[in-house]
C-alpha cells in the first residue's frame, strides 16, 4: 500500500492524455467528471499515502519508487523516480485537495466557455506537472515538473488568446519563468558535477558528509533560488504574476495563488540542508522574501482591479514564506504555504464569484455595496480577508506569526520589522478591498446591475469548503508558546527539514511578538475602515497631497517599463542593429563582396579581350617576352 504513491501524478496525466486525444469528441459533462475525478483520485491516493507514511518509522524516509532509468549518459544519470516523505505528502495533499476544489468550481465558472475541454485538459496537465514537481525524488525530475507547471501557466494565462493582453501575458510569464529556470538548470548542473547525482537523498548525504564546501553550497543555492524567484514571483522576477491575472479566475486561484507559485518555497524547503549549509544564501532568501513582502504590498495599496490586488498580495505572502525559509524556520514557511493555499484560493474564487456576478467586472471603483447581492460570497470573502490579515484563530494568523516569531528569534530583526510593516499593509489593502467592494455606496453600472446574481452552488460550495479550511487549517500548527507538542505540522515535517534551526525565546517575548502582529493587523483594518467607510475623502486627499508617490505606486514603480527599457528593448533594438549592420552588411556583405570582387576582376580581364587582332597579338607578344625573359633571368 505504501508504494501506491507513485500513482499520484499519473492519474491526472492519464486523464490529460485522454482529454488531449479524444477531448473534442467527448461530451462536456463527461469531460468535467473525468477531470475532477482524476484529481480527486490523486487526492485520495495522497491521503492514503499520507496515512501510510504516518505508520512508517522516520528512519526509512523518504520512500522512493524508482520507475525506470530515464537519462543515462556517462556520469549523468537520472531516474524517473518519485519519493514520498512528509514534505511531499503534505504538498501532494494540499495541491490535489485544493486542486480538486478548484476543478469543481471551474465546472461552474467555465460552463459557458468554448474552450471547456481545452481548459480541463490544461488543468489536468497542470495537476500532473505540479504533483510531479512535488513528488520527484531528484532535481531533474523536479525540474520537469517545474517547467511543466510553467508551461501550463503559460497555456492557462493565455487561455483566451484572442485577447492581445492575455496572449502577451502568457508569453511574458513563460519567458520570465525561463530566466529563472536557466538559473535553476545551472544549479542542477553544479549539483551533478559536484555531487554526481541529482537524487535528494544523495544530495543530502553529500551535504551531510561534507562533500561540498560552503561557497559552492552558496552558489548552488543562489542559482536554485533564481529559479525560485521566477516561479514564485519574487523580486526581481515577480513581474509576470500581476499580468497572469488575464487567465480565468480559477486558474489564478489554483496556479497563481495556491500551488505553482509556491513551488519555489517548496524547493527551498526541499533543499533546506543546502541553504542551511550556505548561510549566506539563506540570508538572501530571507531578505528577498522580506523586501518582496513589503514591496508587493505597497503596490497592492493603490490597485483597483480586484484580481491584481490579490496578485500582489500573493507575491507579498510568498515573500513571507521565503522569510520563513530564509530565517531557518522551514516548517513555518511550509505552514504558511499550506494555510495560504486555502485562504488565497478562497479569495480568488470569491473574487471570481464577484466577477461572475458582475458580468466580468473587475474594477473596484465600479462596485461597492455588493454585500446584499452576494450573500454567500461576501462572508466567505471576509473570512479569507481576515485569515490573510492575521486575525487570531484564523489560519493565516498562526502561520504568519510562526514566521515572524522565528525571524525575530533568529536575529533577523530587520526582516521582522519589514514583516510587521507588511502585515499592516496587508491588513489595510485587504480591507480596503472588502470595503470598496462590499460596503459603502453602490457604484455599479446600471446594465451590470440588472444581471447581478449570486453564483450557482457548484461555485459557492467550494467557497464554503475553502472558507472552512481557512478558519481551521491553522490549528495543526499552533504556536510553540502554547506547547511544543501542539505544533503537529512542524513536528511532522521535522525529519525532512533538518536544516532548520530554532532559537528558543522566552514565552513572554513570544507573547509580545504575537501581540504586536495582531495589533498591527488590527491597525491596518482600522485605517482601512477609517479611509473607506468613515471618511472616504481621505484617500483622495492623500492622493492630491502626494501625487508622485501615488503615481509611483499606482504604476507599480514603473518596473515593467524599466525592465523593458533595460533588458527587452536593448536586446531587441540591439539585435535589429546587429542584424542590419553586422549580419547583413558585414558578414553577408563580405560574402556578396567577394562575389562582386570576383565578378569585377572578370570584368577588368574581359576588357583586354577587345576584339582587335592587334591587342590579342600584343598580349601574346607580352606573354612571349615575359616567358623568355623569365627563362633568361632564372
Amino acid at each position, binding site marked *: 500500500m505504501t508504494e501506491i504513491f507513485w500513482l499520484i501524478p499519473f492519474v491526472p496525466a492519464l486523464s490529460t492524455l485522454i482529454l488531449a486525444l479524444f477531448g473534442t469528441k467527448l461530451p462536456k459533462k463527461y469531460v468535467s467528471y473525468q477531470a475532477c475525478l482524476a484529481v480527486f483520485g490523486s487526492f485520495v491516493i495522497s491521503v492514503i499515502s499520507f496515512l501510510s507514511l504516518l505508520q512508517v518509522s522516520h528512519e526509512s524516509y523518504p520512500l522512493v519508487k524508482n520507475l525506470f532509468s530515464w537519462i543515462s549518459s556517462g556520469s549523468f544519470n537520472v531516474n524517473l523516480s518519485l519519493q514520498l516523505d512528509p514534505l511531499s505528502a503534505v504538498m501532494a495533499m494540499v495541491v490535489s485537495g485544493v486542486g480538486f476544489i478548484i476543478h469543481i468550481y471551474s465546472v461552474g465558472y467555465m460552463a459557458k466557455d468554448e474552450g471547456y475541454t481545452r481548459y480541463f485538459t490544461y488543468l489536468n496537465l497542470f495537476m500532473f506537472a505540479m504533483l510531479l514537481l512535488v513528488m520527484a525524488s531528484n532535481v531533474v525530475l523536479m525540474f520537469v515538473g517545474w517547467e511543466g507547471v510553467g508551461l501550463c501557466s503559460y497555456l492557462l494565462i493565455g487561455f483566451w488568446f484572442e485577447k492581445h493582453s492575455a496572449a502577451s501575458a502568457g508569453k511574458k510569464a513563460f519567458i520570465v519563468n525561463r530566466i529563472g529556470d536557466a538559473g535553476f538548470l545551472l544549479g542542477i548542473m553544479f549539483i551533478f558535477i559536484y555531487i554526481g547525482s541529482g537524487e535528494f537523498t544523495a544530495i543530502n548525504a553529500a551535504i551531510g558528509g561534507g562533500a561540498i564546501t560552503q561557497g559552492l553550497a552558496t552558489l548552488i543555492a543562489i542559482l536554485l533560488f533564481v529559479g525560485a524567484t521566477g516561479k514564485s514571483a519574487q523580486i526581481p522576477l515577480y513581474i509576470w504574476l500581476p499580468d497572469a491575472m488575464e487567465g480565468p479566475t480559477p486558474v489564478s486561484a489554483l496556479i497563481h495563488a495556491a500551488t505553482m507559485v509556491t513551488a519555489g518555497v517548496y524547493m527551498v524547503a526541499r533543499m533546506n540542508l543546502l541553504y542551511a549549509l550556505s548561510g549566506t544564501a539563506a540570508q538572501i532568501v530571507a531578505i528577498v522574501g522580506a523586501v518582496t513582502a513589503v514591496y508587493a504590498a505597497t503596490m497592492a495599496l493603490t490597485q483597483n482591479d480586484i484580481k491584481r490586488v490579490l496578485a500582489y498580495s500573493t507575491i507579498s505572502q510568498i515573500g513571507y514564506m521565503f522569510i520563513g525559509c530564509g530565517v531557518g524556520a522551514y516548517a513555518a514557511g511550509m505552514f504558511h504555504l499550506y494555510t495560504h493555499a486555502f485562504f488565497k484560493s478562497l479569495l480568488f474564487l470569491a473574487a471570481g464569484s464577484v466577477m461572475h456576478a458582475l458580468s466580468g467586472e473587475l474594477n473596484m471603483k465600479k462596485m461597492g455595496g455588493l454585500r446584499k447581492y452576494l450573500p454567500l460570497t461576501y462572508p466567505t470573502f471576509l473570512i479569507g480577508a481576515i485569515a490573510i490579515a492575521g486575525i487570531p484563530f484564523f489560519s493565516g494568523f498562526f502561520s504568519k506569526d510562526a514566521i515572524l516569531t522565528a525571524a525575530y528569534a533568529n536575529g533577523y530583526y530587520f526582516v521582522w520589522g519589514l514583516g510587521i510593516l507588511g502585515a499592516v499593509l496587508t491588513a489595510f489593502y485587504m480591507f480596503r478591498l472588502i470595503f470598496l467592494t462590499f460596503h459603502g455606496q453602490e457604484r455599479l453600472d446600471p446594465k451590470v446591475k440588472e444581471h447581478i446574481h449570486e453564483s450557482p452552488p457548484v461555485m459557492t460550495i467550494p467557497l464554503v469548503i475553502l472558507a472552512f479550511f481557512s478558519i481551521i487549517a491553522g490549528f495543526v500548527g499552533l504556536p510553540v508558546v502554547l506547547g511544543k507538542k501542539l505544533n503537529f505540522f512542524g513536528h511532522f515535517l521535522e525529519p525532512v527539514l533538518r536544516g532548520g534551526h530554532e532559537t528558543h525565546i522566552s514565552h513572554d517575548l513570544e507573547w509580545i511578538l504575537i501581540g504586536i502582529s495582531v495589533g498591527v493587523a488590527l491597525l491596518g483594518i482600522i485605517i482601512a475602515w477609517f479611509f473607506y467607510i468613515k471618511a472616504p475623502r481621505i484617500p483622495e486627499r492623500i492622493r492630491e497631497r502626494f501625487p508622485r508617490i501615488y503615481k509611483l505606486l499606482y504604476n507599480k514603480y514603473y518596473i515593467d517599463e524599466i525592465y523593458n527599457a533595460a533588458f527587452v528593448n536593448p536586446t531587441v533594438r540591439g539585435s535589429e542593429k546587429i542584424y542590419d549592420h553586422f549580419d547583413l552588411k558585414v558578414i553577408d556583405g563580405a560574402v556578396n563582396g567577394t562575389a562582386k570582387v570576383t565578378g569585377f576582376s572578370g570584368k577588368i580581364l574581359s576588357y583586354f579581350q577587345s576584339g582587335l587582332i592587334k591587342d590579342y*597579338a600584343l598580349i601574346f607578344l607580352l606573354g*612571349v617576352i615575359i*616567358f623568355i625573359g623569365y627563362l*633568361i633571368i*632564372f
Partner: protein
Amino acid sequence: MNSFFALFPLLIIVFIALAVLILEVFLKRENRDYLAYISLVFLVICAFVCIQFWNKAYYYFDGNLLLDQFALFFTFILLLSTGFVVLLSMKYISLQDVNYGEFYALLLLAVSGAIIMVSSPDLLVIILGLEVLSISSYALTGLKRKDELSSEAAIKYFLLGSFATAFLLFGLALLYGASHSTGIPTIIRYFNTEADLSLMALIGLGLIVIGFGFKIALVPFHMWTPDVYQGAPTPITAFFSVVPKAACFAIFLRIFYPFWKTAFDSQAIFWLLWGISVLTMVVGNLVALRQTNVKRILAYSSIAHAGYLLVALLAQDNSSLVFYLTVYLFMNMGAFAAVIALSKKDKEYLELEDYSGIGFKYPWIGVTLSIFLLSLAGFPPTGGFLAKFYVFSSAVRQGLVPLVIIGVLASLISVYYYLRIIVHMYMREPSREVDIVVENPALFLVLFLCLYGVLQLGLYPRNILVLINQAVSLL
C-alpha cells in the same frame, strides 16, 4: 610490319578525305549525309586498324613515325571526337548553310594532322602535323561564309595562328641549333648531357611551348579562343575544343615526361608552366563569369580546363592527364551537342536568355546538358569529378598544394557560370520564343554516348584506366 602498313591509319583518313571531295561532286545536295556516313565508317575502320598496332611499339620511317600505345590511344581519342563532330555536323551543316562536301574533307584532313602530331617523336613532323591541323582549322572556321562572325573568326585565328607559328618555328630553329636535331629523344638527351647551349635550347623549348600553348589556349596565348569559338560553326568549335588540345597535350607529355626525369635543372620551365597554369585557370574562369553567349562561356571554360590539364602535367601524372582529357572529350562534346541541338534553320540559340525554360521544354537536352555542365564543374558522380580528383590528388602528392588550392578555388568560380546556364534552363521563365528542330537522331546519339561516357568514367572507369596506364607506361 613494314613502314607502309604503319601509314595505314593516316592513309585511310586522307584517302577518305579525298574520296569525300570527289564523291561530293556526284552527290545531290540532299544526299550529302552519305558523306558523313562514309566518313564515319572509315573512322571506325581506321580505329580498327589502329587496334592491330596495339602492343607493338615500333618506329617507322627513320624514327619519324611512332605507333606506340600512347600514340594509338590518342589516335582513338581523336577519332572518337571526330566521329562525334561528324555526327553533330550532319544536321547542322544543312540547317546553317555550311553544306559543302569540303566540310567533311577538311575535318578529316584536320584530324589527320592531329594524328600525325601524336604519332611522331620528331618535332619537325609534329609541327608539320600541327600545320595541317591549323590550316584546315582556319578554313573550317570560315566555312559559314555568309556569317560575318565566321569570317572574322577565321581571320583572327589565321593571323594570330601564323604569328604564333613563326614563334614556334623560331623556337624549333633554336632547339635545332643547340641540339642539331629535331627528334624529341635526341633533344632530351641533349638536355641531359650538355649545358653550354642550354639557355638557347631552353628558350627554344620555351617558344615551342608557347606555340603549342597557343593551340591549347593557355593564358596569355589564349586571346583568339573565345572569338574563334564563337564565330566558328558550332560542331567545329566542339572540334577545336578537343582535338587540338588533345594533340598538343600529347606532345607536351612526350616532351615533358622525359624532361622532368632528366638531370637537367628544369625548375625554370617548371615554374613558368606553374604560373601559366595558375593564370589559365584563374583568367579563364574569371572572364567566363561575364559571358552571356554560351559558346563563349564554353570557350573560356575550355581555357580553364587547359589550366587544369597543365596541373596534371606539372604533377607528372600522365595517366591522370590522359584520363582528364578523355573525360573532357565526353563532357565537352556533350555540352556542345546540346548547344547545337538548340538551333533551327539559319538560327542558333546561343544567348543565355534563349536558354530560359529550356530545361522543362526539352527535358532530354536539359538533363544531359545539365549533367555535362555539372561534370565540367567537377561535381560527383560524373567523370569530371573523378578526373579532377585524380589530377589534383597527384598534384598534392607532388607537393603542389598551393597550385591545387588555386585550382579548386578557380573551379569554384567556374561552378557559378556553369550553374548559371542551369539556372537559366530550369529556374527562369522563358523570355523568348525558342523552337528548335528536334529530329536529329545523330545528335541525340552523341548526347547519349557522351552521357554514357561521362557517367561511366565517373562511376567505373577501371577498364579505361587500364588502357591509359598501358598507353602512358611506355613514354
